[in-house]
Every structure is written in structure tokens, then in C-alpha cells.
């Protein structure tokens, strides 16, 4: 990336936004590369250098994050699979299990005791909890599961 090349970074970010939109039909690498005004090969290399993962790895991670949010909101595993752009329930479940550590159904069950589920995966307000140590973390977990 050239000296203080903000436009190039901006276009790369625009391309990343396209790839992050899991609700739209799969955006090809070629389309994303054009958004960044780069050839596909150069785009993949540049994307990996700036964002630490290939466009494909990024899109997969975004799809799984979206899947976690939708599962937390109570959508069925099959619906989530389709909504985040997977065509096969088997491959979705296998990938989800490999990356998240539990199956989509298990992940959803672990949140089911919650009455109110926000559309993002909760985590404690870290600084406060860190100061409070294990006891504060236990209180957060208990409170979260009651909500």
C-alpha cells in the first residue's frame, strides 16, 4: 500500500463490507476485487495482508458470527443455515461445530434459558469483572442466565 494511501484502504474496506453482508447472495471474489479496484489475485493478497485472513476465511467467519446471532434470537437451525448462505445443513453444522466447539443446536440450547436474548453474543463488561475477579464473573454469568 502506497504512502498514506487512504483511498486504497477505503476501497478495501468497502470490499470487505460487501463480503460481510451475509444476507445478500454470495459475493464473488471478482466482484469484491472490482470494488477495491484490484485484480482478484492482488485483492486476495492485499486483503490477507491488511486483515490477517483471506476473503474466504473472513466471509466464513462473518457467516458463523451471523449464525450465532440468529440462533441466539431463536431462529431454527435450518433457517439460520439458509439465511447465512449455506446450502447444506450438514456442512453448516459440521463447520459450526468445528469452529465454535458445539453444534448449532447445542449452542442454541445453551442460551435457551434466557428470556431476553439480544442480537449479539454477550460478554461481561470486562474491566469491571476483571477487577472483581472470579466472584464478579460468577455473578455476571448467573445474572445473564436469569435474564
Amino acid at each position: 500500500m502506497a504512502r498514506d494511501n487512504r483511498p486504497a484502504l477505503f476501497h478495501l474496506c468497502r470490499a470487505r463490507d460487501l463480503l460481510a453482508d451475509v444476507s445478500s447472495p454470495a459475493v464473488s471474489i471478482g466482484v469484491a476485487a472490482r470494488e477495491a479496484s484490484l485484480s482478484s489475485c492482488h485483492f486476495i493478497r492485499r486483503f490477507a495482508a491488511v486483515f490477517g485472513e483471506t476473503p474466504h476465511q473472513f466471509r466464513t467467519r462473518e457467516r458463523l458470527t451471523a449464525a450465532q446471532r440468529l440462533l441466539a434470537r431463536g431462529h431454527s437451525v435450518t433457517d439460520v443455515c439458509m439465511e447465512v448462505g449455506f446450502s447444506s445443513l450438514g456442512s453448516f453444522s459440521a463447520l459450526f461445530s468445528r469452529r465454535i466447539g458445539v453444534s448449532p443446536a447445542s449452542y442454541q440450547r445453551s442460551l435457551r434459558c434466557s428470556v431476553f436474548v439480544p442480537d449479539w453474543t454477550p460478554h461481561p463488561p470486562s474491566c469491571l469483572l476483571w477487577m472483581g475477579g472470579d466472584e464478579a464473573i460468577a455473578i455476571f454469568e448467573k445474572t445473564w442466565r436469569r435474564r
Partner: protein
Amino acid sequence: MRIKLISIFVDDQDKALRFYTELLGFRKKQDFPVGGARWITVTSPEGPDDLELVLEPNGHPAASAYQSALLKDGIPCTAFESMAIHDEVRRLKAKGVVFTMEPTVAGKVTIAIFSDTCGNLIQIYQQ
């Protein structure tokens, strides 16, 4: 009252820990699970051992929006001091770090900006 922790949002905590330790050379100080994420802090071997940088997940929509907006506009989210910025830039480039601004004299300081691969631009400066 004193400054003990500074946090930055990262889009992937594993990736962030690798970048900040293996590429930047910081040391892992804390790493334990908290809720659905982890409490990860690193310190600089060139700075005080109890001044910690928290690698905080950007799971909240506002956090990712904030990160994305700064990145698009080329604005660094924080800055680290270097005693030898040109050597530092050479060292990081050799490891594949991408700079969006080469070392540039700006008044009394020389600054450079790089991508931390986790959705942030980081400025380094030498006084």
C-alpha cells in the same frame, strides 16, 4: 488514580493475540475465559509490566461499527511510542505488516501507521 488498562476492539481474539505477540513482540499477560469471550491482555517488554493492553472482542454492533468507521477513514485507534521508528517499521514490514503511512515527520514527532489485521489502524510515533 492511574492508567492501568487500555482496551482496543478486535474482530478475532485469537488472531489479535498472534499479531500482538508474534509480530509486534508484546507479551501475553492475561488470557482466561469470560462469558462467551476471553479476557486477554498484553504488555510491552519496553514498557511497565503492569500497563496492559486489553484485546477486547467487538461483538457488540456498536463496537464493530465504530471500528469499521475509523478504519475506512484511515484513523488510528491508538498509538504506541517507539524509540527507533525507522528500525521498527523495517522490522515489521519484514514480517509482512502493512503500513498505510510510511514514517512521516509531523512537527516534533515522526509517525507511521499500520494495520493490526484485526480491524484497526495503529499509529507508532517517535518523539
